């Protein structure tokens, strides 16, 4: 490929080099090949989906280069699959980065502490390579206060920070972001742990009007300076999304709402009087505050709810698209008056305290429902089970447009699951958690094979599946045979033998993420997937029947795979070859060097 000569710049010998060329400033008479590249640059601006861009980059070297120059958002699905410097070398003009770290099972204490997924190396490298970086999205990564300081110092025009399920930093780090990033539009700390260092980070936002559009800190378990927050909200005219933590009482919520009637997304904090106020709590007209928020479409919070105050939200119900009551321990009688007004609802998260009756009310009231999550009030195996197959059946009948469901229950039947598979053909995500391990169909006592089989057979768009209950290899045969689009599969306490896993590895051609725990799959099953592991983002197998020997064979057969063996505390010295956790993933840059003692890389 010929390269155009920029005046005064030596011709680089490496055809892969990048020119920081501004598309608009074109050389008066460009080389013919360059014309094509310039046209391509303009055209590729319109390609945003990363799969499309990846495909374009494979056409030829010219397209590869041009695509690399025009990619402004980079998505790294596994932070260890590629080194930061490789990313910055290939994509020089990135404005937005998304990086995912730990696998999902880390959320449930299945991963040793300090396993990794540090943001430090990324911010250090990007700080130098991307001075114009505007957006960082991290999921399940660990950051330090220092990393956040460096972020604030490195990126002058930084606009959006989204941290989902992250940890490692404290209020000091937040203060750094608030004070250094004067252009900050989004600060989203969903599900992220923030250590309480006592720093009043809310007060660290600059004085005067801010650009804030989104401030989300609903799970930050630190008290906040309310006066500072009130002042911040008052001087943020662009604020659309505000999700408060449970330190914010109902009275305080009122004061914030009247200052921000333009909100579209609201997390209500405690939704109850603060303990300090007691009986002398000033009784605001909460309903009027909600009435004033004419654009409100997404409501959440209710962390310490006093149900008597729920009617205050009636004025917004008719417009609600998303409602998260998953922290509100309310019963069906308290739910009904709300839900029957939410005709437009598409996303609903609730606690199982609403019971099957509550779910029937949802089914009757919300024909447009796309996503439902039913969380357990008492997440234990032998707890009372207020929701069951009855609720699931009702939902399937009332909500035919359902696309995504997460359902925790104590008992289920194949019949209800089969009904859902037929009534809800648009299902993309089906996650059923029967909390008792190995629980069969409640009525027939049979395994749940037929139910899950029906899901993969009938839901042709299914890409994500999580199973539970008693499952034999037959269920996996179904999944392997029909789950051709499944990309994420989550298995726990299921299957009889290696055959089960083999069915999945041989049949699910689009499988990207496979997480398995406590299932009787061994080395033979593991080895049956060698043809596919390079196509996957990761494989997780914990408390299965793997041996070091088997894992070593995989590592030998697939040199670009990083095969990590993790051991639980107290088990590091076991020589019997049994494997606690296998976590393996493809990587362009070989094994990482930031492991702790509990990690062995084969």
């Amino acid at each position, binding site marked *: 490929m010929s390269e155009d000569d920029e005046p005064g710049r030596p011709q680089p010998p490496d055809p892969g080099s990048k020119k920081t060329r501004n598309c608009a400033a074109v050389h008066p008479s460009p080389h013919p090949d360059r014309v094509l590249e310039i046209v391509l640059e303009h055209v590729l601006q319109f390609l945003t989906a990363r799969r499309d861009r990846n495909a374009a980059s494979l056409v030829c070297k010219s397209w590869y280069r041009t695509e690399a120059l025009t990619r402004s958002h980079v998505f790294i699905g596994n932070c260890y699959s590629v080194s930061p410097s490789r990313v910055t070398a290939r994509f020089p003009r990135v404005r937005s980065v998304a990086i995912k770290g730990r696998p999902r099972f880390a959320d449930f204490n299945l991963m040793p502490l300090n396993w990794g997924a540090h943001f430090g190396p990324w911010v250090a490298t990007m700080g130098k390579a991307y001075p114009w970086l505007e957006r960082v999205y991290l999921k399940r990564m660990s950051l330090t206060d220092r990393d956040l300081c460096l972020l604030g110092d490195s990126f002058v025009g930084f606009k959006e920070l989204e941290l989902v399920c992250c940890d490692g930093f404290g209020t000091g780090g937040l203060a750094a972001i608030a004070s250094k990033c004067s252009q900050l539009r989004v600060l989203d700390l969903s599900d992220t742990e923030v250590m309480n260092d006592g720093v009043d980070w809310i007060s660290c936002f600059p004085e005067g009007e801010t650009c804030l559009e989104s401030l989300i800190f609903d799970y930050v378990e630190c008290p906040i300076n309310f006066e500072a927050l009130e002042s911040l909200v008052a001087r943020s005219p662009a604020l659309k999304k505000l999700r408060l933590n449970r330190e914010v009482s109902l009275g305080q919520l009122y004061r914030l709402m009247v200052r921000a009637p333009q909100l579209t997304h609201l997390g209500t904090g405690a939704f109850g009087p603060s303990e300090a106020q007691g009986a002398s709590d000033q009784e605001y007209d909460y309903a009027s505050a909600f009435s004033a928020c004419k654009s409100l479409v997404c409501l959440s919070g209710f962390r310490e709810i006093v149900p008597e105050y729920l009617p205050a939200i009636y004025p917004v119900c008719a417009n609600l698209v998303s409602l998260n009551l998953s922290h509100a321990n309310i019963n069906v009688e308290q739910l009904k008056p709300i839900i029957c007004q939410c005709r437009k609802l598409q996303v609903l998260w609730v606690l199982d305290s609403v019971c099957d009756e509550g779910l029937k009310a949802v089914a009757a009231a919300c024909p447009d429902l796309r996503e439902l999550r039913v969380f357990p009030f008492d997440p234990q195996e032998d707890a009372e089970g207020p929701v069951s197959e009855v609720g699931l059946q009702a939902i399937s009948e009332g909500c035919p447009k359902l696309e995504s469901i997460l359902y925790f229950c104590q008992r289920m039947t194949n019949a209800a699951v089969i009904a859902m598979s037929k009534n809800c053909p648009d299902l993309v995500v089906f996650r059923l*958690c029967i909390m*008792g391990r*190995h629980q069969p169909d409640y009525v027939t006592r049979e395994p749940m094979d037929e139910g899950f089989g029906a899901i993969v057979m009938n839901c042709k768009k299914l890409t994500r599946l999580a199973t539970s209950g008693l499952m034999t290899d037959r269920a996996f045969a179904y999944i392997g045979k029909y789950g051709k689009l499944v990309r994420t599969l989550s298995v726990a306490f299921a299957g009889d033998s290696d055959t089960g896993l083999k069915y999945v590895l041989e049949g699910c051609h689009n499988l990207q993420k496979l997480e398995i725990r406590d299932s009787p799959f061994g080395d033979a099953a593991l080895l049956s997937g060698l043809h596919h592991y390079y196509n996957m983002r990761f494989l997780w197998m914990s408390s299965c029947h793997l041996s070091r020997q088997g894992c070593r064979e995989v590592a030998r057969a697939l040199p670009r795979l990083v095969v990590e063996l993790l051991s639980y505390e107290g088990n590091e010295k076991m020589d019997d070859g049994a494997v606690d956790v296998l976590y393996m993933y493809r990587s362009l840059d070989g094994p990482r060097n930031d492991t702790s003692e509990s990690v062995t890389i084969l």
Partner: protein
Amino acid sequence: MSAPGRAGHSPEMVEYSGAMNLDETELTLGLPGGESRGKSGTKRGFPDTIDLSIGAKRRSLTGGGEAAKDPDIAVAERREDEVSGTISSKPPATKTQVVGWPPVRSFRKNVMTKSCKFVKVAVDGAPYLRKVDLEMYSSYQQLLAALEGMFSCFTIRKYLKERKLMDPANGGEYVPTYEDKDGDWMLVGDVPWKMFVESCKRLRLMKGSEAVGLAPRASASTCTSSSS
């Protein structure tokens, strides 16, 4: 790698209970040399697992190699009968909780236990009410001790089974009662603590003489009117 421990297990359901006395008789599907992998978990990540070996007779290391390649459902059918035959009912309630199961994030679990359950406490003869947060306590003993602390004129009778509070000033006994979800007045202490917290709407320390009409587990019409 051979695993003599694996093959030939009986198909009975095995369970790790964590209780010391069952360790010797425990059958597991662990690999050879895998001792009681049931050390009780430290904070992070030791899963106490239940190994369920349904139909283990036909299981081998290669996992049914003769049918491995064939995803035909019919092949699995043969096994399903064995499977159905050996399914046991739900494991006994003494099983330990497993790490990370059910898969609910910790902030959801924490939030539940931190929720407040404030109920009003009325004492017969006292002019004002108090409030207690039932979630602060994990047993009747604790609750009564707290009530004793609040209404400092009381002392808890030593015979806790009777669960009465004594007012030394007038020598009267006070019986703790509560109104449940159905509106009935019940004696405190009959049901398991958790169930009580769930169903209690308010508390009333009733003068002993008035409480005669309340029987344990009374379901209806036991009201506050005194009966003798």
